[in-house]
């Protein structure tokens, strides 16, 4: 009995080997269809997971999305905050760092020593590196200039386009800022045009501004760039407000709400597209495979003629397609993951991190599709071997 089983098993695998070896063209075609499906499945699943995370990073192109201001004031007006508040802001989030920049606003008289022109303008004192970072998205010309000497506190300032135009100052010229009887001077390192209120402001180092305003260690507002999905940002704001009850933490609604809307749209679109592509690809591969499987009636007829029961015949074919699915899935899935790394790099400039969970899922899906596609062979159960051989059916 045991002997028979061993012989049976040996025979089973021999037939399987033969099935593979008999028609290399057909084998190649089936592997191609299955592999293509597996590759696309793996690539899209990987990209889908990665793209949603990456999108939230992209949204930071809009700049600050959360504002911390003194309690009770409508905006960054006359009231100020202690500078130490900035250290209470948690910056390390699971999906990236929060960028923090604090600012002190004041009105000062701005004059150019050469021309003697003078006018009142808003002066924004920011942490020196902070204002450079904020101005990166401002204009194309400023980006080139950023590679120049690193600005040091107090010495350089960034002039908004409209201030510069009205006061008639040129690059590298000196500006004198006066508030009450306090004076500070700075060199204009670069201009920027943002279309926002920054155009009407002069940005200088925070220390210089504090000296000028005679408000040591005080700031008017803290701007945060918080990464994450809209929901995560909401909960971050709520947590921060609880942590800092003495200040007002408010989302910059224009961006938080717009982002939420757009994020939902894009991620919905991506999910829907990927879902449809995967479903149709699976069906398409299945149709192609079934087509090939249906050609096997001769084989089925022969096996039945020499005494194979339908169950055993079917088991043979299922084993064959499952093996094919496994091979196609393993090759295609690996290809797809490499593909998605390349695609991620092309779209977001950063290679998509391969998710290992995607690989077994893609392989399993391919095997399932392969097995399902062999099922129509069951219809062959009713075949009478003789009619197959006579070429009737």
């Amino acid at each position: 009995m045991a002997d028979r089983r061993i012989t049976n098993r040996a025979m089973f695998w021999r037939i399987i080997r033969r099935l593979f070896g008999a028609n290399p063209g057909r084998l190649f075609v089936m592997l191609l269809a299955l592999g293509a499906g597996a590759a696309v499945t793996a690539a899209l699943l990987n990209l889908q997971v990665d793209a949603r995370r990456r999108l939230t990073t992209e949204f930071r192109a809009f700049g600050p999305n959360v504002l911390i201001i003194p309690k009770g004031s409508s905006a960054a007006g006359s009231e100020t905050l202690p500078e130490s508040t900035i250290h209470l802001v948690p910056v390390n989030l699971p999906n990236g760092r929060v960028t923090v920049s604090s600012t002190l606003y004041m009105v000062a008289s701005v004059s150019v020593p050469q021309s003697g022109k003078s006018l009142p303008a808003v002066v924004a004192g920011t942490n020196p590196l902070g204002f450079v970072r904020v101005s990166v998205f401002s204009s194309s010309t400023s980006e080139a200039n950023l590679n120049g000497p690193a600005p040091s506190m107090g010495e350089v300032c960034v002039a908004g386009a409209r201030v510069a135009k009205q006061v008639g100052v040129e690059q590298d010229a000196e500006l004198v800022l006066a508030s009450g009887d306090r004076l500070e001077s700075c060199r204009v390192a670069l201009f920027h045009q943002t279309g926002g209120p920054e155009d009407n402001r002069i940005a200088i180092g925070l220390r210089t501004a504090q000296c000028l305003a005679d408000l040591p260690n005080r700031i008017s507002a803290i701007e945060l760039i918080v990464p994450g999905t809209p929901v995560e940002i909401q909960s971050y704001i709520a947590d921060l407000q609880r942590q800092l009850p003495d200040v007002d933490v408010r989302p910059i609604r224009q961006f938080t709400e717009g982002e939420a809307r757009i994020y939902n749209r894009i991620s919905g679109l991506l999910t829907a597209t990927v879902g449809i592509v995967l479903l149709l690809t699976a069906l398409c591969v299945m149709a192609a495979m079934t087509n090939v499987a249906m050609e096997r009636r001769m084989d089925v007829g022969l096996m039945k003629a020499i005494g194979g029961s339908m169950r055993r015949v079917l088991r043979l074919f299922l084993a064959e397609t499952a093996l094919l699915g496994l091979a196609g899935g393993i090759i295609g899935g690996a290809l797809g993951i490499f593909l998605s790394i390349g695609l991620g790099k092309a779209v977001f400039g950063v290679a998509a991190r391969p998710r290992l969970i995607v690989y077994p899922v893609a392989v399993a899906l391919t095997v399932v599709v392969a097995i399902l596609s062999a099922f129509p062979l069951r219809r062959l159960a009713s075949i009478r071997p003789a009619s197959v051989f006579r070429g009737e059916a």
Partner: protein
Amino acid sequence: MFLRIVADSFGRRPRHKLLTGAALGLGMGVATAALSVSLDVGDRLAKEFRSLGANLIVTPQADSLPLEIGGVDYRPVNAGAYLPEADLPKLKTIFWHNNIVAFAPVLEVRAEALPFTREDGEREPGTWIADVPLIGTWAYHAVPLPDGGEFQTGIAKTNPWWQINGRWFSDDAKECVVGTAFARKNHIKIGDSISLAAGDVTKIPSPLKVTAVLSSGGPEDESIVVPISRAQSLAGKPGQYRKLYVSALTKPEDAFAKRDPKTFTPKEYDTWFCTPYISSIAFQIQQELPGTDVRVIRRVAEGEGAILTRVRMLLWLVTGAALLAAALAVGASSAASVIERRTEIGLMKALGAGSGTVGFLLAAEQLLLAFVGGGAGYALGILLARLVGEKVFGVAPEPSLIVFFVIIALAAGVTILGSAFPLRRASRYEPAPILRGE
């Protein structure tokens, strides 16, 4: 005879052909759906991005520098320049007028407010509140167009993140909307009335009815929003405004758009002018409204551009992957259908058909299948794209004829390519061994 053989091939093995056709149709369905969505998504997303509000700001060229901190302007009342409201319909006459989604003029003024508290159904004046920021603007305003017709626009469209609890005022009624912080501080509710005055008050002006409470998360929460005509009369500047927000649909800026328009050759200039880049729209507005400074709100425009480019690219890649998978699966399917027909090919050759005739016959059969399958796939794909479009954007993408031709061409190309390889091998078959079953 040729047609008979083809017809016979379909009739004799209907299930087989059906499966090949199904594979083709499904594959092309994927391709169609992905293509339609990708083609459509740029415009749809650009519209979505308008929920970020205006991307252009127009100010008078001769204006003095605003001393604005946190949205509050500390300039003296009469400093600065103004622009005429009557010029605004011209905005809809620029080359890209269809891309201008909304615009709203703004005139800010400071005034004194006298709320009437309403208790026991009786109106009783409270005390004057000094120095209240007023924002005069259009809520929903019908702008008459030069070619007849009207254009509905206003602050509700340029600043869509402003949340209104109630309804916007009508532009000609004695109504206003109060900011939520101001309302809370002065205990004002919807239905109350407020009198507004500037300068010396000799008699209490007729009050405005509060129709809504505004929550914007910004400095507007502290102010009162009134129809622009009301702000104009308080400021003594009838028919004038100071800031204009414009929300326009644009094409993300590429390297070309970032160049200085002055360095363009005439041909490049035409290309630039006829592309809805934000810079060319700004230029056209400036031409139409003399004496203005049109600035791009970089924060909105560049963030939008960056994300739009990324998403579009992402979807094109998904489409590319879908096309590839569909092509491979369909190609495999048609290759299989040729491989399995060795006996038939052998028979035909034994009966005297040349390799060319056999190849032609099989190719014709495959092409016929490709057209039918491709057509069905197109219909299926359009249906799915419609589903996605409606689900995600609430609007179905327009079926495009280009996509149809692309899909049919793709289907034909893929099937021919898929069958070409086995067909070439088939042409080398010796009929005798095949017929003998070897």
